[in-house]
């Protein structure tokens, strides 16, 4: 996108413009000579200062305040607040419920991206290279139908998805048990109420809502791979499976990495899904996540200091997670690093 520019103008013109911009570096030409006229000053005030001020007040300043509040025993409604240092964090790491929530989050961050990406990759490969093995590499016939249908859950509000599935999982009148009964399975499972199935059922819902979106992303990434590369592989005798493993996957490493980070961040949050599926945290807190516990501690118990400490832990885990993913992908992809870039 950065090199091609928005389609529309002819190739030659575009390239000239881009190289001109490139050689000029990051700075726009002639800016040194810009005088502080009323026009320029008012322009900067409205165009830059206004949005940045809004962003600083409502996003950045709460982030910074949170770090301070996390070290107080503030209960919010009384003005009294004393500095307690790292006490809140010590308390959190001794709190078995919080540790349980953290473990649940860790499980989600590991499993949800993995399953979603594997399914999305398989579907995307089927759609793009699943066609006949002679001639140019082609996709399946009628694949746009699958693309349109499986992308749809992405646009439904997540809370509605969660409510919808909580009804499907209903033990006595839900769709799932109804299907199982029709197939002859006698005993009814309380999918969300049984500790053994609650987490699995929850993970499935998140995967269900995300697969289509990442499938579309991966299809776009595959389409971005030059056709000659695929042709060459085919002429060299690579079958479909070999093409996917040796050609597509290495080329899509960055896309998969980004997808893993996004999905992981989403799974570390997971608040919306849990709110609709098991608002109370599930049987024996088996689906309780940090965000739910934080919300409850803050807005039901009023322990704002402790709650913001949870927020800090959650943020730290998010950053560590992103760092880990980038590190692991660098390790995996180390050997083909030289070939591209």
């Amino acid at each position, binding site marked *: *996108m950065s090199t091609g520019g*928005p389609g529309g103008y002819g190739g030659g013109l575009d390239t000239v413009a881009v190289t001109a*911009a490139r050689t000029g570096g990051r700075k726009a030409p002639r800016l040194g000579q810009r005088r502080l006229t009323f026009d320029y000053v008012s322009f900067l005030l409205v165009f830059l200062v206004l949005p940045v001020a809004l962003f600083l007040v*409502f996003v950045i300043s709460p982030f910074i305040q949170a770090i301070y509040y996390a070290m107080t025993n503030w209960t919010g409604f009384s003005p009294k607040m004393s500095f307690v240092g790292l006490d809140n964090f010590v308390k959190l790491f001794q709190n078995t419920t919080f540790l349980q929530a953290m473990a649940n989050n860790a499980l989600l961050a590991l499993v949800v991206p993995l399953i979603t990406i594997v399914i999305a990759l398989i579907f995307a490969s089927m759609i793009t290279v*699943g066609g006949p093995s*002679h001639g140019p590499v082609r996709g399946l016939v009628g694949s746009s139908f699958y693309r349109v249908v499986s992308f749809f859950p992405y646009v439904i509000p997540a*809370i*509605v998805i969660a409510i919808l599935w909580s009804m499907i999982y209903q033990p006595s*009148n839900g769709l799932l048990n109804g299907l199982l009964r029709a197939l002859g399975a006698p005993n009814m499972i309380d999918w969300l109420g049984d500790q053994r199935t609650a987490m699995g059922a929850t993970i499935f819902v998140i995967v269900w809502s995300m697969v289509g979106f990442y499938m579309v992303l991966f299809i776009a990434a595959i389409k971005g791979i030059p056709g000659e590369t695929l042709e060459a592989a085919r002429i060299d005798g690579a079958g479909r499976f070999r093409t996917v493993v040796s050609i597509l996957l290495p080329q899509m490493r960055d896309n998969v990495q980004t997808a893993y980070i996004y999905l992981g961040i989403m799974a570390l949050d997971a*608040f919306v899904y849990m709110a609709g599926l098991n608002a109370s945290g599930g049987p024996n807190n088996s689906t309780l996540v940090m965000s739910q516990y934080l919300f409850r501690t803050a807005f039901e118990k009023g322990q704002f200091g402790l709650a913001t400490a949870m927020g800090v832990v959650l943020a730290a885990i998010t950053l560590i997670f992103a760092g880990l993913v980038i590190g692991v992908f660098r390790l995996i992809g180390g050997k083909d690093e030289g070939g591209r870039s």
Partner: protein
Amino acid sequence: MSLDTRAAVTVDAKAAREIRTTKSTNSDKVVGGVSHVILALWSLVVILPMLWTLLGSFKTTKEIFKSPFGLPANWSFENYVNAWVKNNFGPMFLNTVIVVSAALILVMLLGAMCAYVLARFSVPGSRVIYYLMLAGLTFPPFLAIVPLFFILQGMQLLNTLPGLIITYVAFALPFTVFFLFSFFKSLPYEIQEAAYVDGASEWRTFFQVMLPMAKPGLAAVAIMNFLGLWNQFLLPISLNTNRDNYVLSQGMASFASSAGYQVDFGALFAAVIITIVPVLIVYILFQRQLQGSVSQGTSK
């Protein structure tokens, strides 16, 4: 670029001749068949829950309990009426439309302006702003939620629609700026120069020259932002607890948790359908652009 297309075209022509002469091999049929079966099964997994809900929304609670597949004895809209009236869907729908459209217009305008300055002017501190935006994009909103609650309370904006709009704008800003930043960067500098030479002010250059050129990028971000804001859940349930100001997503949640006690499943089914239908219509209308903007977002 032009070389690419030429190569692809010649390959295509040759291949077209080949297809006419060769028949599908057995392995082609197997792979194609298996792929179709798997993808069709997944489509079923996506569609079936919706159909079941649609069916359920016309049944009485008694019928729902009897069999999950049975057709309703008489197709009545009673559940819809119940859901709409009991759940105050009318005002909530209106609130959502007001909040989302106001926030969308504001965030697109402010985001485009900010991205334009960051991408095309050398203003001191622009690097810092860029990294702060990155932080805003990565850190979980849960870190901010408690202080944000008290900031809004201090400004008398807690539990008000303007307060909600302003926080929506602030939280959607980083994504908008990031996406549009690369877009404005790729626009040719010559045109901006030409506008200056012709005597246009900075304001005029932006609104009459640069902004119209950025239309494809703006459309892509606007669609993504619309979905994100329409589906927003955490901000309203923590910052907007006044029942009169409820937006759809939080109304659905409270309805579902109260329906758990009264067991009016029919109305709940209807409520789900009511919230899905608008997005379904938007989705069908903008399906192409939406998938296009998702793909554009990755190729940055």
